């Protein structure tokens, strides 16, 4: 039987291999939460930030509050994962970044042996006024593709606040991804949603990012970068609604199809309900750009090397 200590060591090791900073998990100054399956293996509080958690039957409920005016020096580190081949993990996350606060969160979700795993994350994020919240989530799902991941979030961005979210799944397989984020943006707020995904074999990717620019002079960018190989499929919906005067939004989707049977769809949905709002979109789907390939090959790279350079740059 694996002890909690051994379990913790294993997941931290996997966390490090997936790109996480293992030293941060040891530091007393860094707020952390490490969850394996439905067990919290470790948690650390830090000045200005409170983390409350509760173990449930199938996962964990966590609440993170950043106190008003506090600028958290070190990013919060979260680690969620399932190391065995099978399992179910449901994370319910509430984040409250109070007025004037500033915090970054680095989250790693690790499922290195996934053959039959479901991971769901349901989050409610409230960002107060004049606050800043940066959230960077990196996933690693191993090489078997036996995982279904359902990240869902509702975010409220307060007046004059900044919200930046990056979702990255570029190593290993994706499996099935059903990503659904909806953001409501207050006056003079700035929101940026970035998704980077590399689909291989039979990976099935659905991304829905919706931004409602509800406040005057609110601004947003939805940016997605996908590369699809083999028989991978993706559908990316980037939705932005300009509902207030001088609101500005942009949707930018690039999907590279590098496989005979890969299928990519990009569906930008843009609307304005105020004559002073402006929302734009650009989408580019297709095979790797011929001129880019020729340029790199004219520097001596062969075709495969050139593809790697281009894909690496797009997903960077």
């Amino acid at each position: 039987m694996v002890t909690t200590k051994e379990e913790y060591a294993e997941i931290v090791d996997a966390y490090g291999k997936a790109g996480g900073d293992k030293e941060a998990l040891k530091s007393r100054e860094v707020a952390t939460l490490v969850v394996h399956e439905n067990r919290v293996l470790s948690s650390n509080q830090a000045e200005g930030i409170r983390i409350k958690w509760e173990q449930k039957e199938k996962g964990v409920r966590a609440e993170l509050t950043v106190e008003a005016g506090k600028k958290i020096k070190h990013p919060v580190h979260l680690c969620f994962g399932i190391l065995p081949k099978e399992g179910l993990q449901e994370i319910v996350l509430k984040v409250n970044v109070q007025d004037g606060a500033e915090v970054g969160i680095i989250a790693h979700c690790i499922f290195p042996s996934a053959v039959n795993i479901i991971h769901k994350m349901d989050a409610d994020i409230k960002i107060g006024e004049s606050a800043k919240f940066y959230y960077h989530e990196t996933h690693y799902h191993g090489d078997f593709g036996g995982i279904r991941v359902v990240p869902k979030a509702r975010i409220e961005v307060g007046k004059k606040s900044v919200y930046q979210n990056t979702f990255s799944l570029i190593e290993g397989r994706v499996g099935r991804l059903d990503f659904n984020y909806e953001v409501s943006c207050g006056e003079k707020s700035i929101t940026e949603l970035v998704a980077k995904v590399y689909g291989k074999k039979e990976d099935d990717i659905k991304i829905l990012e919706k931004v409602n620019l509800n406040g005057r002079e609110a601004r947003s960018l939805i940016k997605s970068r996908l590369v699809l190989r083999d028989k991978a499929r993706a559908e990316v919906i980037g939705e932005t609604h300009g509902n207030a005067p001088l609101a500005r939004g942009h949707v930018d989707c690039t999907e590279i199809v590098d496989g005979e049977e890969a299928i990519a769809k990009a569906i930008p949905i843009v609307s304005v309900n105020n004559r002073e709002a402006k929302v734009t979109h650009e989408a580019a789907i297709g095979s790797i750009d011929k001129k880019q390939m020729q340029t790199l090959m004219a520097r001596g790279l062969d075709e495969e090397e050139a593809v790697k350079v281009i894909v690496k740059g797009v997903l960077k």
Partner: protein
Amino acid sequence: MLQIENLKLIVDGNPVINDLSLNVDQGEIHAVLGVNGTGKTTLAYLIMGVNYLPDGGKIIFDGEDITRYPISQRAKMGITLAWQEPARFEGLSIRDYLGLSNDLEIGEIEDYLWAVGLPPFQFLDRAVDTSLSGGERKRVELASVLAMRPKFAILDEVDSGIDVVSLPHIVNGIVKMKSLGSSVLLITHNEDTVAIADKVSVMCAGKIFKMGPPREMCQWFRENCQICGHINLPG
């Protein structure tokens, strides 16, 4: 170093390259001067193996017939191309772009940037993407050709769209290329750039009409080509 013999290319029934012959010697800067639409860029593409294969004639490089070789093979032999409209690469830094073809020390990469007038501390970690102005992108392109230390560099209008302040940096870059041992085929319609060449060939309607020293060819170009009414018509 490079011999082009009776090269022909027909596109949609038009002789875009029309029995063209040209020689470039080792260590030479050889300019090809011509007005727009005479086939200069197409010639560059044929030498590099981009987009087209010729319908007739030969391209001999270092004694080897490379007429049907693919791009990568020509590049590995030491031929490269600086594009008239260089591609942009999201997420690829200038540092990495210059380091693609050779294992370079950071000092060397910085030297190549200085050679084209781009301060490394400002440009090294920038991406080769749409954030660069047209002129900056061209200078990065020239620096990347320098960094490859090619035997033979085809420079396709590297001076077009460059402001007067930056143009000397382009010229310096080309001169440096020669000093490092590269032969250069310099495609341009700018007489000021032509001045650094060892020889100039004047091109019109897909063929070389005349070859000679820069001053003489520029004069001939001015007197005959710039006012000519039958661009792109052979003979």
